[in-house]
């Protein structure tokens, strides 16, 4: 190849390197039993980061855009799949199955992680919104919510899908007679459950008014104890609903979710409290959650508060010790200058053929190098330099 500018060649060079690596690694991935989808995701992540770094001129631009869009969709679909998977356990309708088939297999691999990631955001959101279950129910204008969740699903054959919106907040929207996705808020299982039920209940009648309703996460289940279990929990809760007698949709869901939470050892006393409070069947509670009708709930609340206080005390003790240490560290002679000298951003990584010195004149013969200068990447096959020390 003739002398070509290193800067121009870079995109092709990098592209070819990426292709080579991905192809070589494909076998490794298959041997490990890792899906091809993950390999593609690796490639996408890799190329995206390169684009973001702006060290290389844009390449794969159209493909990148398509891949990014596909990646987002895949992520959303993954969550949907999570929901669907659980639901299918109970009621597998043909339509549901068909939808699952369409969805990428990636769902199996990272469902919970996504849930986990989103949970903190959701928790914050939940705390911020402060809507109670009753408020939500009122908003949705639920009928005397008698129909249990399961029936809602089967009768309509709809599938609840969870979608993660860009900002991490999810909403549940279910459209009647359409098995399209509901955007569900990724919340700890309990929160999702009531929302779902509430949405489903009115939908049973195919009421179009519900189609556009966006439900925000409810406080029915407290976030603090319930993180992570997320949609899988909810789904499991829904799955278990089959065994429950018809009751309020929200109550049943919350109850099941709570059972799940207990089983998983992440009980949120307040959630239970609320669920239990809502248990009285046939009546739609509109005066808000947080009933204190049962003594057990009060005790659990007190225990929970005590734990918090203990943790706070511990943190206070540690802070006191930390404050003392910096006093001594000021005695050191600053070594940072040496560190800064070697902490440059312009880096050349290469191999040397010959390094020569005469008195204080240095000559460098370098080869096969990648340089990052002023944020931009360059490559060279040979480099010759002079410097005086």
């Amino acid at each position, binding site marked *: 190849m003739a002398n070509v500018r290193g800067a121009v060649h870079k995109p092709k060079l990098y592209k070819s390197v990426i292709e080579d690596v991905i192809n070589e690694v494909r076998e490794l991935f298959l041997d*490990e039993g890792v899906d091809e989808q993950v390999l593609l995701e690796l490639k996408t992540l890799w190329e995206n980061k390169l684009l973001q770094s702006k060290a290389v001129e844009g390449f794969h631009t159209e493909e990148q855009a398509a891949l990014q869009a596909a990646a987002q969709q895949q992520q959303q679909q993954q969550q949907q799949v999570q929901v669907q998977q659980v639901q299918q356990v109970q009621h597998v309708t043909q339509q549901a199955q068909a939808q699952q088939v369409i969805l990428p297999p990636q769902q199996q691999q990272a469902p919970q992680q996504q849930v986990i990631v989103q949970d903190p955001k959701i928790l914050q959101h939940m705390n911020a919104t402060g809507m109670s279950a009753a408020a939500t129910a009122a908003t949705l204008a639920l009928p005397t919510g008698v129909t249990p969740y399961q029936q809602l699903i089967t009768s309509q054959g709809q599938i609840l899908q969870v979608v993660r919106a860009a900002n991490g907040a999810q909403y549940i929207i279910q459209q009647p007679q359409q098995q399209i996705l509901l955007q569900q808020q990724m919340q700890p299982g309990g929160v999702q459950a009531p929302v779902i039920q509430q949405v489903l209940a009115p939908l049973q009648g195919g009421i179009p008014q519900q189609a556009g309703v966006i439900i925000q996460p409810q406080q029915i289940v407290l976030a603090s104890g319930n993180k992570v279990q997320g949609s899988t929990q909810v789904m499991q809760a829904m799955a278990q609903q089959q065994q429950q007698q018809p009751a309020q949709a929200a109550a049943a869901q919350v109850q099941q979710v709570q059972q799940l939470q207990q089983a998983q050892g992440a009980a949120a006393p307040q959630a239970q409290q609320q669920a239990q409070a809502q248990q009285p069947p046939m009546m739609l509670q509109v005066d808000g959650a947080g009933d204190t009708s049962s003594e057990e709930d009060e005790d659990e609340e007190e225990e929970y508060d005590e734990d918090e206080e203990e943790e706070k005390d511990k943190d206070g003790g540690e802070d006191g010790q930390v404050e003392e240490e910096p006093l001594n560290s000021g005695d050191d002679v600053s070594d940072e200058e040496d560190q800064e000298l070697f902490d440059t951003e312009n880096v050349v990584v290469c191999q040397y053929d010959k390094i020569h010195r005469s008195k204080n004149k240095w000559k460098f013969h370098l080869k096969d190098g990648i340089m990052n200068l002023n944020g931009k990447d360059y490559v060279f096959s040979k480099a010759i330099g002079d410097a005086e020390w």
Partner: protein
Amino acid sequence: MAYQLYRNTTLGNSLQESLDELIQTQQITPQLALQVLLQFDKAINTALANRVRNRVNFRGSLNTYRFCDNVWTFVLNDVEFREVTDLVKVDKVKIVACDGKSESTQNKSDKWSVTQTPQISVCL
């Protein structure tokens, strides 16, 4: 085995970050990620040796030099990098160079290998 030298480049770092993300979400194992990086080392070494054919000259003042474990590390100031058409100036640049003669030495952790001619060895 190729040099792991090139992992600390834009290309290498973005690959490592991507692999870390996949490990975080448990889509791949750390072992697999390591295999990927080893494969990357081979690919980048081959690509640089075969697909790049250009020369660069540079001139500057040497601030520090270090030769340890057969690896040269220089810090130059006020450097001009000149290619046929390009000129790039930087205030400070760090050059890390592994031995280009014997590919048998893998990564930098090869302390006990007998080097060729004795060179100035300043291990700070």
